[in-house]
Structure formats: C-alpha cells, structure tokens
C-alpha cells in the first residue's frame, strides 16, 4: 500500500520536474513553483499531526537529556558509590544504584545515548545501501537485477539477528562503529526491494528517458532523477529502520552479542538489571521504560511522516470514513 501511495505522491510532483531543465535537482525545481511547495505542504501536514509532533519532541528531548546529563547529574556513569549498594531511587541516586554501586541514572542516560546513536547511524548506513542496491537493480535490470534480488532473498531467509549474533563475537574489543556497520549491513533488504519496484516505474518516465538520450551516465541519472523522486519513501523508511534497529541492538546486547562492557546500552542495562533479581525493579524498569518510550516516539514520527507524505493515507480518508461510521454501527 505504501509503495503505490508514495508513487502517487511523486507523480503529482513530476510535471514540475519534467518542465525544468534536466540538470536542475527536483528540490530546486519545486521551490521555484508558485504557491505552496511540496516540502512545506508535507511539513504543514506533519505539524498538524499532534501525535507525530509529540513523538519528535520526545525524541529530541530524550537525546538532549542523554547528551547533557553529565553536566547536571550528581554521578558519572563510570563512578562507583561504595556507600550505596543496591539502593532504591533516592535524592542522590535518582534511579537507584546497582549491586556494585553504579549510579543507575547515569548509566541509563549513557545507554540511552548509545542506543539512540546506534539506531540513527544504522538507519543512515542502511538507507545508503538500500538506495544504491534498489536503484541499481531497478535501473539496470537484467543480470544485475537478478543477482542483487537473489542476495536480498537470501538475506531475508536468514534472520539478521542470527547472522549478526554469529559475527559480532569476532568484533569484540573493536569500536562500536564497526557494530553499527554490521547492523546496517543487514538492515537494508526490504527497503531495497521497495525502492527497486519504484525505480522500475520511474525508469520508464519521460524525464529519465530524456536524460538518458542526452547522454547522461547512469550514475548521474540515478542520483539526479531516480533518488530524489523516491525521497519521501526513503525518509519514512529511515524512521522505521531507526525503531527496528534500536530493538535489534538492545536485543543483541541483551545476549552479550552487541555493545561490550565497560560501554553500556539500554540492552546490556536491562540484562544486568534483570539477571540480578526481579525484586529490585529500578535496575531494569527505568531503562526498559525509556527504551519503550524512545521506540514509541520513533514509530509515531514514522506514522506521521507517512500520513504527511501520502495524500491518500489516514489523514485524508479520515473524514470520509467517519461519515460512514454511524451507518456501520447501526448495522451491527
């Protein structure tokens, strides 16, 4: 459903692009058109969606809080308070302390920062791979397409969790950036498939053909004409990937296949907190709660973006459906 809707959205924009010289990128072209630009329209729709806006605000706030917490928190994440082991939340230790006297608030903030950073970076890596693979497969077709899609199918059969779990012990001791690359390497398949499908239809459009006949090399065509026209879907997909990656990363870290000590992520915190004892819930409830809130916020943003980009999704349908609703109720 998403695919077709987004294509419709892109199609509405295409005449403006087609009318301008081929070398002008799509964004510049639409800003020259009179009245409201598509970007502003999308922005306006997004801002009107209160849930999505709240999600975005929550996300920014959480990230800022995690980044700035060392400035105002009484304890650092690597400090030990030898006078307070396994204490419940108090004025000095806002989220309590662990068995060895670590401050749970400082640790949670550190973990939140790491988990969010990993989610955002991985989504960036994944969308780059997905757009290159998807656009190339769709644009070139033939054996390039068959080969790339076969790889996609293969990676889809193998759960990425399994592959990453196998590889990550070998990365032990390396920087967490490598872990991000590993996550990104196995998070792009479904997006690539969708982008390939869209490229197949874009390839046949006049402005792409015109560019081709004028002698533009495939790389330029993909970068200037194919990718900008799939931007809306790519933005939505980045959001979805952020949420999925945070879940995957915390899951892997929970098993010890992700972030390694002394560094912490929300996953390792929840694991350490829960293996100790369920009777000291502050050890895992705060990190768990923040994890759910963060992912929930990401999902709301993603949902809002989809509605904003896609004129036919819920936002537009709402009024029609609502009119029909009483009739349905009466029938039951």
């Amino acid at each position, binding site marked *: 459903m998403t695919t077709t809707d987004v294509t419709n959205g892109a199609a509405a924009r295409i005449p403006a692009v087609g009318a301008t010289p081929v070398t002008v990128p799509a964004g510049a072209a639409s800003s020259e058109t009179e009245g409201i630009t598509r970007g502003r329209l999308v922005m306006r729709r997004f801002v009107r969606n209160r849930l999505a806006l709240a999600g975005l605000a929550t996300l920014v706030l959480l990230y800022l809080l995690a980044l700035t917490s060392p400035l105002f928190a009484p304890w650092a994440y690597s400090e030990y308070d030898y006078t307070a082991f396994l204490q419940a939340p108090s004025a000095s230790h806002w989220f309590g302390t662990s068995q060895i006297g670590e401050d749970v608030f400082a640790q949670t903030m550190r973990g939140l920062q790491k988990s969010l950073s990993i989610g955002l970076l991985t989504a960036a890596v994944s969308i780059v791979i997905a757009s290159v693979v998807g656009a190339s497969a769709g644009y070139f077709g033939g054996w390039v397409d068959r080969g790339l899609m076969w790889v996609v199918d293969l990676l889809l*059969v193998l759960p990425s969790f399994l592959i990453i779990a196998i590889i990550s012990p070998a990365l032990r001791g390396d920087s967490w950036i490598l872990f991000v690359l590993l996550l990104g390497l196995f998070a792009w398949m479904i997006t690539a498939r969708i982008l390939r499908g869209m490229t197949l239809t874009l390839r046949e459009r006049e402005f792409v053909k015109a560019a081709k006949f004028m002698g533009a090399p495939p790389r330029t065509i993909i970068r200037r004409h194919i990718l900008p026209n799939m931007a809306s879907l790519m933005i939505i997909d980045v959001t979805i990937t952020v949420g999925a990656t945070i879940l995957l990363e915390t899951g892997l870290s929970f098993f*010890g296949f992700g972030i390694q000590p002394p560094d912490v992520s929300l996953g390792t915190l929840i694991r350490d907190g829960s293996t100790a004892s369920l009777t000291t819930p502050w050890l895992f409830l705060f990190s768990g709660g923040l994890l759910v809130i963060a992912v929930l916020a990401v999902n709301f943003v993603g949902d809002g973006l989809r509605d904003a980009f896609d004129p036919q999704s819920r936002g537009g349908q709402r009024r029609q459906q609502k009119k029909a609703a009483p009739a349905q109720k009466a029938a039951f």
Partner: protein
Amino acid sequence: MTRFLARRLLNYVALGLVATFFAFALAALTFDPVGRLQERNPPPPPSVIDAKRAELQLDDPIPARFVSWLGGAVQGDFGKTTVNTSISEELPRRIGVSLRLFLLGTTVGITLGVILGVAGAIRQYAFSDYVATLFSFVVLSTPVFLLGLLLKYAALEINSAAGAQLIVFTGETTPGFQGSFGAALLDRIQHLILPTLTIALGQIALYSRYQRNAMLDVLGSDFLRTAQAKGLTRRKALFKHGLRTALIPMATLFAFGFGLLITGGTFTERIFGWFGMGDWLVYGIQQQDTNITATVTLFVAVLVLVSGWLADVFYALLDPRVRLR
C-alpha cells in the same frame, strides 16, 4: 497449480541450502573453538591442540567441511558439539520444545490478532479501536525480552498477592514432578502461560494492525455492497465475502511471521529457561560451536521454507486466480 507449487518449493529448497551454507561458512570463519583451550593456564601441549583441531576438522577448507556436515545431516547425523556430545540425540527434544511454544503462541496470536483487527476495522474510530491501536503501538515498541521480563515481574506480583505459585516462570515442567495426569497437565499449563503470552502478544499487535488495514480496504469495496444488495445480511456479507478477501494478503504474513519466530523465540526461551532451538543457538555461539549453529540455521531455513511454501498453498486456496498459473 501443482506446477506453481512445485516450482516455489524448488526455489525455497535452493535458498534454504545456500542460507545454511552461508551461516556455516560465517560461523566457521569467525569462531575459534580451540581459543579457550589455548588460553588455559598452564597452556596445554601443542599436540593436544592439534588433536582437537583435527577432531573439529578446523584445518580443512570450509566448503569441504560443509559438504561433509551436510552429507551427515541428510542421513540424520548432524555431527558432534565441541564438547563431544551428539547433536542428533539432542535435536528432537529441542525441536519439540520450540515447536510446542511456537505453534501455541502463533495460534493464539493469529486468532486474537485477526479478531482484534477485524473488530477495529468494523468499529473504526470507536473507543475500542483507539485502545487496540494504542496497545499495538506500545507492544510493537517493546522488545520481546523486555516484554518477557515485564510479564515475569507481573507474575511475581500476582503470585505474591495470591500467596501461591499460580504462574511459574522457569522451565517447561517442575523438575522431578510426580503426579496424576491431571496434575501434570496443570503443571505444564502453569509453565506455559507466560512464554506463550510473550510470543502471542507481539503477534497479536502486528497482525491486528495489518488485518485492520486489509479489512478497511475491503469494507469500502463494491463487491461487499453487491453482496448486501443481493440480500445477504451485513454480518454474513462481512464474514463470507469480506473476511475471506481480507485474509489473502495475511496468509503470506502469517507464514513468514512463523518462519521468523526464531528471533522472538530465542529471547522467550532464554528468559523462561526453555531449552529449545533458540536457546541452543545462543549456547552454540557462546561456545563457538559451528555444528550447533549450522544445525539451528538449517532448522530456521526449513521453518521459513515450509512456512513460505504453506503461504503459497494458502494463497492458491484462497485466491482462485493463482490456481490457474
């Protein structure tokens, strides 16, 4: 239809084999099963390490190792673990544990998910729809391991409130449990509740979202109005014409969801102390054991393969146009 299904089956078998090889090669490349032996203090003599290497075939090329492992696997021998126990002996028990958990969890998940989704679509924008949507969003944002932990925590509270061990959250049965059939069944059910719920909740959330969308698409369609114009009651039209159509896109989702359960199952099994395939995978990786890892991957591949193929069969059954292909 037979040709269509046969072709799909062949495709899945090829994919499954390559996927297993891929996992085997990755495991063989990255694992270092003798590392622990070498780190012993005092270090064991080189001859011992060489013997272990030879025993684990570590010096053979990886494709050769894979072929010899696969050759055994086809005949039902999945090789030995690094600590020299037979994988084949443990395999049926582990598969049994996992399948029991997955099948029950999936059945509950699909049934409730479809009901919730259809109800949400029929009463769109009613209060119940909002509650269901919020529930799905929250559950989908909660990782499985946290869900399991929270349920465990809730069960602890319930148990202490009731003053009795109503819900048990470790293992499959009470070790050494003796009693009549009824008591044994009750014991099993007490152990089953939480793991099944953990698996089912995520699926309910996911499927209800998709089912709601699929049902909404169908609700606005012409054929549903025609069915009612023909004289069917709304209820009959909805269930005989609407639901059937809305279930078609779901079939693929169900099947693949089942195949990919292994990830969620891994967490569930670990948290609740069930010794199934997911638990084995984590154990295999922690022990740097290529054979266990490859065996679990093969199991996953077979699961995905069978469920993917079943999706095609469902598709053919539900959608007459596919049968002609």
